[in-house]
């Protein structure tokens, strides 16, 4: 069975800049999401959105100061967490929601799924969830063939993990010893169905990868430093030519699958517990202050800076024009 990943993490062992950057990234992700929901409420953006609030630690921990621009990611379709952590400009992501030409798709309106920024290794995402798992082994194969030390991280939810593509991908990853890291964002629900209703596993989704001989573990995805550590190990493994890693990161979504989802299929007490006791931002903030590295005032200021950055990004995105009608005929072929 998959190892439950645990390490003693002491804040004093880390570069303070990294710790602040991790915090800032999580705050940025949440603030981005909250503001996007506000834009939906104002009727400017469609509610076809899957909020990533509650799972920021998983993305910040696995990307911030670990991945370079040349490393590839396939993000999952919950929030814009990984895109933001990978450094895609916020105005571009907002532009993709607002449908203005500021977006990465220059007005096509990528929404949550189809933003891309190849210059930062963000290769896009499949609207058919889980299809990115097949693409990821291809990108990793290309790096291996070219002889670079690039790594590919593919993110997907517990729901996507039940796609057939998962097994095809794991087989290739192990068979060809590919530099690919699987990060399964397990928030327990595929829309309304609990993971126990849809997955035949020993105990964990990560156990599937055990059958392929892929190093794997289950980790608390809401502990940003644990996520940092487990991903760092996986990246080192990939760079040394030791092949893939499968990380099942446990988390929980604070909101429903989509905006407007009554979210009444979960146990309210469980959700409250995640919000009160396992919120990645709240917990890390407490750790940072308790360690004496920073003060509450400083973090509040940081939050204000982030908010300011977000509002500016929205302004840029909103002020950009909508595309002309002929936009739909552009870019089909190179």
């Amino acid at each position: 069975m998959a190892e439950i990943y645990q390490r003693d993490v002491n804040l004093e062992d880390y570069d303070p800049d990294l710790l602040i950057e991790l915090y800032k990234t999580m705050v940025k992700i949440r603030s981005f999401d909250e503001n996007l929901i506000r834009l939906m409420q104002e009727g400017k953006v469609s509610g076809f959105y899957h909020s990533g609030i509650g799972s920021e630690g998983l993305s910040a921990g696995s990307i911030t100061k670990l991945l370079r621009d040349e490393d590839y990611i396939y993000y999952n379709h919950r929030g814009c967490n990984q895109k933001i952590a990978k450094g895609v400009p916020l105005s571009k992501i907002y532009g993709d929601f607002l449908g203005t030409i500021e977006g990465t798709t220059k007005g096509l309106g990528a929404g949550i799924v189809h933003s891309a920024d190849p210059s930062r290794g963000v290769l896009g995402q499949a609207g058919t969830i889980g299809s990115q798992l097949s693409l990821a082994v291809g990108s990793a194969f290309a790096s291996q063939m070219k002889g670079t030390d690039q790594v590919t991280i593919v993110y997907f939810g517990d729901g996507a993990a039940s796609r057939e593509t998962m097994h095809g991908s794991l087989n290739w990853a192990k068979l060809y010893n590919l530099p690919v890291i699987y990060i399964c964002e397990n928030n327990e629900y595929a829309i309304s169905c609990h993971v126990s209703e849809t997955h035949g596993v020993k105990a964990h989704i990560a156990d599937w990868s055990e059958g392929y001989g892929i190093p794997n573990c289950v980790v608390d995805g809401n502990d940003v430093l644990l996520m940092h550590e487990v991903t760092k190990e996986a990246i080192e493994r990939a760079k040394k030519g030791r092949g893939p890693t499968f990380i099942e990161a446990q988390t929980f979504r604070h909101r429903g699958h989509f905006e407007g989802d009554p979210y009444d299929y979960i146990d309210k007490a469980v959700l409250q517990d995640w919000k009160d006791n396992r919120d990645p931002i709240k917990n890390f903030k407490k750790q940072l202050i308790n360690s004496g590295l920073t003060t509450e005032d400083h973090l509040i200021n940081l939050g204000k800076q982030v908010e300011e950055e977000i509002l500016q990004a929205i302004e840029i995105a909103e002020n950009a024009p909508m595309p002309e009608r002929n936009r739909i005929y552009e870019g089909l072929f190179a």
Partner: protein
Amino acid sequence: MRQITMREALNEALHEEMERDESTVLFGEDVAKFGGINKVTQGLYEKYGAPRVYDTPIAEATIVGAAVGMAITGHARPIPELQFGDFASIAFDEIFNKMGKWRFMHGGQMEMPITLRLPVGIAGGAGPEHSQSPQALFMHGPGLQIVVPSTPYDAKGLLKTSIRDNNAVLFFEHKLLYDMKGDVPEEEYLIPFGKADIKREGEDLTIIATALQVQTSLEAAEELSNQGVEAEVIDPRTLAPLDMETILNSVRKTGRVLIVHEESKTGGSGAEIAAQIQEEALFDLEAPIKRIGSPDVPIAQSIHLEQFYRPNAQQIINAVNEIIDVPV
């Protein structure tokens, strides 16, 4: 000029393009050491080895998905093979949505230099899931170029163009054409997409045919010529892009049209071609457009029954005579 088989022509194209561009990577089921079940990829593994040429698991969705993931890095030019074109159904999402649309839906930021080879057609009692010609399904999918050669010459020139192209190509090879011999020059040449080839000139009617049916139509045209009917036989060579200009010029000249393909008739590529002809040249027609395709039923495994699916020269002759008999 030297004569070689279409198998040899395709194999030469692969050798030349893999030599020319070291970012090319060829993979699929049994394509490496075994040289492919149709022996089209022979000698490539021996020359280039893994990872440039490698055998994959039986996993069509992953084969095509991985090709997309390779292509969009900008560092690889994949040439995957699906052992039978029918297996496109297993990788439908990867072909229809990912190969075809990934570039567009991500704002045109990536290129898709994939040539997916798909052997198709009724041959040797392979049965309902190893004999189909699913080309037309993909005419409905934006972002996919569809190549269907009918001669060794076209096969080589079109495959080389496909591999060099920075967009997705579905390359359909009729299995009964692999052993067909034809003129192929020693020197290098390329054939552009969207350029139909007039395989035989004629004044009385236009036959538009693809793949093996080009050969069957030429055979029928010779017989028709003995009867005093001169058919023009046009091979579009690529269904996407489709060279309607060449087709319409011929239609305006002859006023009579027969479309022949091995794809089943309903919803086959001929349906689209017929629709476009009537949109552009209805009043140039002197008779209704006729189509011949294989019957709209699953293909039987029996070699005895198989012959009743594949359009033959006599059917073409009969159809032509019906068209010609329509009074002006």
